[in-house]
Every structure is written in C-alpha cells, then in structure tokens.
C-alpha cells in the first residue's frame, strides 16, 4: 500500500518530551560545528548540553558526569580520536548500555569501522545532516534503548538464561532492533559457554545474509572450542570480504599462534598494523610474536610504538617498556635498555607490580653488561617485592622472575616460584609447556623436567585423594580435605572448583546452609577470576543457583 509521508509517525511524538530531559555531550574540535550542533539540540528542547573540544576532555567529562547521549566527532585533531573515546568510555564503564553514542563523521563510515567490530557506536551520522535527521536518529535510538532496557538489566546482573529468553521474545516480535538483538544473543551464548548452541545460532544467522559479525562470532566459538582450522577459515572469509575489519586479523593471528604458525601469525598482524597502526594492544601482540620469532627489528619497532601510543592512553602498561627492554638486550643494546627502564621507573613509580617487572628486566640488561652483582641485586629486589603484593602476581611475570632467579644463581627461590606456578596451573598444558621452554633456554632441561614432574605429581595426588573421598560418598571429609588443599594452593582453579563442588554436593544431600552457600560461591568466584573460560564454570554456577532457597532468591 502506498502512503504519503506527511508528518512524523505518532509513535515518535509520544516521546517528544523525553528528549528534552536528556543530558547530552557534544564532542567536536571544530568550534563552528560545535555551535551548530548546540543550536540543533536546543531546537528539540534539550537544555542540558555539555561540550568538549578534544577526546581527552571528553573522556574526562564522561568520567565525572553521566550523559544520556554522546555526539562525538570521529576526527578530533592530534589527540584521541572518536573511536578511542568510545573504547575508553566503554572499558572504564563511564557509560552503560543505556547511553546513546553516535559517531559523527565527515565521510562514509567505512574508515571508522576498521577494527571496530567489538566496540561499535550505536549509530553513525555523516556530515552534513539536517536537523530533522539528527532528531529522528535521537528519537529512534532512545526508543530502541528503552525497549532493550529489561534485557540490559539482565545482562548487567549476568543472568544469561533470562537474557536469552528475553532476546528470543523480542526477536519474534517484529522489532526494528533485530540486528542488535541477534548480536547480543550470540555474545551471551558465548559468555554462557553454550558453544554448540552458539554455533547453530551463528550458522542460522549466516543463512540470512553474509554478516561479518556473525562470521566473527562463529570464528570465536570455533577458536574457544579448539577447532582452529574452522576458526581460521571463518576469520579468513571476513578478511577476504573486507580487509579493514582488523579484529578479524587479530583473531586470525591468535589462531595461527595456537596452530603453531608463529611466522604466519606475525605476517597477519603486520597486515593489520599497516591498515590500522593506532592500536596499542595490536602493537603489543605483534611485538611479542616478533620477539618470539627472533625478529628483533619488528619487535623493537612495535614495542616502541606501544610505548609511544600508551603515553596518553588508559592502556599504558609497564610490560611494553620491559618487553622493549628485553628486545634491546637481545639485540645487543643493553645500555639503551637500561634507559628505557629508567623511563618506566619514572612513569610507574609507586606501582609494585611494575617495579617487579622493571627490576627483572634490569637484571637481564646488567647480565648482558657482565655486571653480575647488579643483576643479582635487581632480581632480589623484585623477589622481595612479591611478598608485599596484596593479590596474585600474573603468571607471566612470575615466570620471568623465576627465570631471572635461575640466571643469577638463586636456584632455591627460582625453584620455589616455578613450583608455585606449576602447582597452581597443573592442568594447563600450554603453560606447563612454557615452563619447560624456560628451562630449555636456561640449558637445564633435565633438571627442569624433574622440578616440574615432582610439583605436578604432588598436586595430582592431592586432587585425586580428594576426589576419592568424594566418590566414596565421604562428603564431609572431602570438604575438609579440599578446603585445606585450597589453603595450600589458592590459585589452582581445579582445586577451587572441586572444593565448591564438594560443598554443593553436600548441600544437595543435606539441605542448603547460608554459610556453606557463601563459601561455595567464594570458591566459584575464585575459579572465575583465575580462568573466566573454565570449562565447568557454567555447571557450577547453575548448581549454586539451584541451591539458593526460593524465598531469598526473590528477596534479592
């Protein structure tokens, strides 16, 4: 049926007043256009309008104010660009799912979406646009956000089963937000670790059209489930269609690495960096893989870029400095390496984790300069700092430190640290392989194998003894046993998971107890923080949820 468009559809005018109450931030470096945007917004009755002329100012304002709508120009001069503003605001949670973020661009959107598969704005607006277009867009997006509100709440509560149900309900109800709902459903299925369902879902979506995000989701699922060949082909298909989607390059490189093709991984990342050089994380990954491939020229360049780009970014990390320092040592420039580390010390003063990394890297540079005594001192300084840390030291740093301890002759402390790493990660084959590689580099492979297998057999025996008690139905003793095991190995995901399991099995038999429920949850949370992708996490979480008595479930 043909209709003549005369006025704005009535469903929109209902919300006319709502727009007036919105708090808006305009991010635009060009004064003239900033004023134009203000005039437009005022004409819709909006009175709360803030503006920012640079990306830095925008992020700063977003960190202290909560806006409903952000209109952000992509091109903001020399500092952060619009995409970086968006990424930082999302990462640091300066905006939640109800915030509307519109990217304003001077040209077609293709340039902007490079690599933006994971952080996309709600919409793009191409300059010039009329007052009417902006108004319509704002209204549509506000309505859309409103309709997704219940879903977003469930997402924030991590109640994934409800999210899926709500998504399905809306998907079947002829909504304009279909695409958003489909994307969300896929992401949640992955978060829920429902990989078989996620695969089926993405395949179905791909049947509706060749959507890069669906192919990307499928590739991710294949990657997580270890089907690297299929993951590789998915990411390659995306790149073949549109090589500007850099996120696909990143994941393709990861896949190559898992498949043992380190040189291929490096090549893919070099392509990605050429397309989109302004990306700290990518430069960092490229630096690491190039260093692994002994391509010190590329590694040096990438880490230098990461350091440079990190200067004004929230992604600034001491690891970029220490990695650069290590590359410089390997390249035969230990003095330059020490300079970099001095810079790092200044940038990260008061950060003990950074100090540990810096001292470890310093010891390598001293070693290269044959300053054995200084090398030893630096390592010991790092080792002493470990005890002062409140939480766990990341495994990579722990291993670096262990290696430096061996190198400087403190085998006793080195061995102790390696044992801790191995025993905390006894079922992580990849990591155990890395530990072995370190001993190989140190030319003490046999000794290393001995240390590793002694550490492993201890923890395997411990875990098996506990499981035996559990299987014999001796739940009370199993609980005690695992609780003690957790005290000994607080960072071992399997021991934590088993402790939670024993507690919950006990409650399934004898009824729930608030104190035990709380304890079980703390073990589950520990597993999650050690390894968010732990294979039985979903089962444990559901088991726990079912044990919560009905009345307190509603109460909370």
């Amino acid at each position, binding site marked *: *049926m*043909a*209709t*003549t*468009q005369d006025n704005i559809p009535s469903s929109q005018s209902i919300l006319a007043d709502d727009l007036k109450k919105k708090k808006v931030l305009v991010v635009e470096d*060009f004064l*003239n*256009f900033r004023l*134009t945007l203000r*005039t437009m917004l005022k*004409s819709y009755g909006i009175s709360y309008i803030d503006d920012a002329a640079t990306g830095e100012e925008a992020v700063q304002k977003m960190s202290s104010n909560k806006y409903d709508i952000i209109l952000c120009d992509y091109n903001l001069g020399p500092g952060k660009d619009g995409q970086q503003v968006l990424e930082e605001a999302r990462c640091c949670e300066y905006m939640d799912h109800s915030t509307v973020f519109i990217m304003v661009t*001077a*040209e*077609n*959107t*293709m340039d902007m*979406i490079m690599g933006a598969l994971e952080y996309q704005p709600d919409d*793009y607006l*191409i*300059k*010039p*646009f*009329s*007052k*009417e*277009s902006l108004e*319509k867009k704002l209204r*549509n997006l506000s309505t859309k956000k409103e309709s997704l509100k219940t879903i977003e709440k469930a997402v924030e509560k991590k109640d994934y089963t409800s999210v899926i149900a709500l998504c399905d309900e809306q998907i079947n109800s*002829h909504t*304009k937000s*279909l*695409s958003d709902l*489909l994307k969300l459903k896929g992401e949640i299925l992955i978060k829920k670790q429902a990989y078989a369902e996620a695969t089926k879902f993405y395949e179905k979506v791909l049947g*509706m*059209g*060749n*959507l*890069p*995000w669906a192919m990307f989701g499928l590739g991710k699922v294949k990657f997580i489930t270890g089907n690297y060949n299929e993951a590789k082909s998915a990411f390659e298909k995306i790149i073949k*269609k*549109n*090589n*500007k989607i850099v996120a696909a390059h990143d994941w393709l490189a990861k896949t190559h690495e898992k498949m043992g093709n380190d040189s291929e991984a490096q090549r893919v990342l070099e392509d990605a960096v050429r397309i989109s050089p302004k990306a700290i994380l990518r430069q960092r990954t490229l630096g690491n893989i190039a260093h692994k491939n002994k391509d010190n020229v590329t590694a040096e360049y990438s880490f230098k870029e990461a350091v440079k780009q990190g200067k004004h970014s929230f992604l600034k990390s001491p690891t970029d400095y220490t990695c650069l320092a290590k590359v410089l040592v390997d390249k035969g420039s230990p003095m330059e390496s020490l300079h970099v580390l001095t810079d790092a010390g200044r940038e990260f003063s008061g950060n003990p984790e950074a100090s540990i990394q810096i001292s470890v890297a310093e010891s390598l540079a001293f070693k290269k300069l044959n300053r054995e005594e200084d090398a030893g001192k630096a390592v010991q300084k790092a080792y002493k700092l470990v005890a002062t840390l409140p939480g766990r030291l990341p495994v990579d740093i722990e291993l670096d430190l262990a290696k430096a301890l061996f190198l400087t002759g403190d085998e006793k402390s080195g061995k102790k640290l390696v044992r801790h790493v191995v025993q905390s990660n006894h079922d992580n084959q990849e990591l155990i392989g890395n530990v072995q590689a370190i001993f190989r580099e140190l030319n003490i492979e046999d000794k290393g194998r001995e240390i590793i297998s002694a550490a492993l057999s201890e923890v395997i025996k411990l875990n098996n003894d506990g499981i035996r008690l559990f299987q014999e139905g001796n739940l009370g003793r199993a609980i005690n046993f695992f609780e003690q095991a957790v005290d000994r190995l607080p960072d071992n995901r399997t021991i934590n998971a088993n402790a939670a399991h024993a507690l919950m099995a006990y409650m399934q038999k004898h009824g729930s107890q608030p104190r035990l429920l709380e304890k079980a949850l703390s073990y589950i949370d520990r597993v999650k923080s050690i390894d968010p992708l732990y294979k039985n996490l979903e089962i444990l979480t559901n088991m726990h949820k079912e044990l919560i008595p009905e009345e307190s479930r509603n109460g909370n």
Partner: protein
Amino acid sequence: METKMDFLDILASTLHDMKNSLGILFNTLEESIEQCREKECSSYGGFFTLQYEIKRLNHSMIRLLSLYKKEKSQFAINVDYYPVDEIVDDIVIQNKPLLSSKGIEIETDCPEGLFWTFDRGLVSGVLENVLNNSFRYTKDKVRISADKEGEYLFLRIEDNGRGYPECMLVDDKEELSYKRTIDFDTGSTGLGLYFSMLVAKSHTNEDREGHISVLNGGALGGGAFTIYIP
C-alpha cells in the same frame, strides 16, 4: 628517498577539507532557512536551489572519495542486517524539505518488517543522489518503493518527469562498465551511474551480485531507477 606526494592523495585530502566546508555551509543554510520560514521573507524559495546544489556537490565528493578508495584498493563494504523501511524513512526525512519546496510529493511503498543485509551508508548514498536529481527532473511526484524480488532486495525511485535520456538507460544485469565519455554540454559525467554500479556490484551473496537498472516508464510514467541487492 621518495618525497613527492601522490596527486591522488592530495586530491583526497583536499576533498575531505572541502567536504568539511560544505558541511558548515549546509548547516548554516539550514539555520537561515529556518529563520526565514519564521519571518516569511521572500528569498525563502531561492535557498532551496542553494541547498540542492550543495547536496549535489556533496554527493559528487562522496563519489570521488569512493572512487579514490577503489583506485587505492581500499574500497570495502560494511554490511549489517537492517530494517528496509527505516532506510526509506530516513531518506524521505533528509529530502522532504527540499522536494516540498517545489511542490514535489513523495510517496513510499515498503512492507514493514522487511530486513536485508547491505551497506547502509553506500546504498543510502546512491538513493539520495537519485532523489536529489528528482528535484530538477520530475514534474511533481516521486515514489520510493522497496521489496523482495526473487532472491534480491530492490529499492526503486520513480518520478513523473520526462525520464532519462536514451544514453543513460541501463538494462537489467547488463555488463557494466564506465564507457561513457564526459558530456561537457550537459555537465553529465555519468559518474553517478558508475558509482551506483560500483555500490551494487560490491554487494555479493554466494555467487549472486548486485546490479542496477535505469529505465523509463514505471509506475509514474517518468524515470525509474532500481538497485538490486542479493
């Protein structure tokens, strides 16, 4: 050391700059039109011709930038799954003030709940360009329609003007190339058509490719432009 700048790069960055100025011009004009409407001053009508020409310039620049990217092998499409009626509505809102100023009526016909996979920016660009031309060539009616046809989505713009000249007609699925020479008499470069073909062809689904058709007749008896997306 090669320090000479590539002319194409200079051209592209200049185009970006020009587009920015044009954006300001467009929005300033919008404000003036708004003020004039309130005061009911006499120069009101003339402003729309200005707006039409600005839009024409803007479309030309978008086309040039896209062709620049194609030349540099940077042309890529960014598809997603969109409600078709929303795209049509957007285009109507963008162009209605201009067309209404000349008494041109816009009619739409698009089923609700129809979704399709395509690059929204590029396809809108093609349609806006055609619609902007209607300002000059139609009598008093424009019709935008969209629907599924076989395994393709079609988006069609028809008018009740004199229709397209013979040399611009494109038949369904004809092998497309930019063969026309620039006609300095009419100022027509055929670039608009070439751009439309480029956009259509870059949409593929399995072994099917998009295409366009430019015909006369149609529902309103004038020109009929259609883009087909697999």
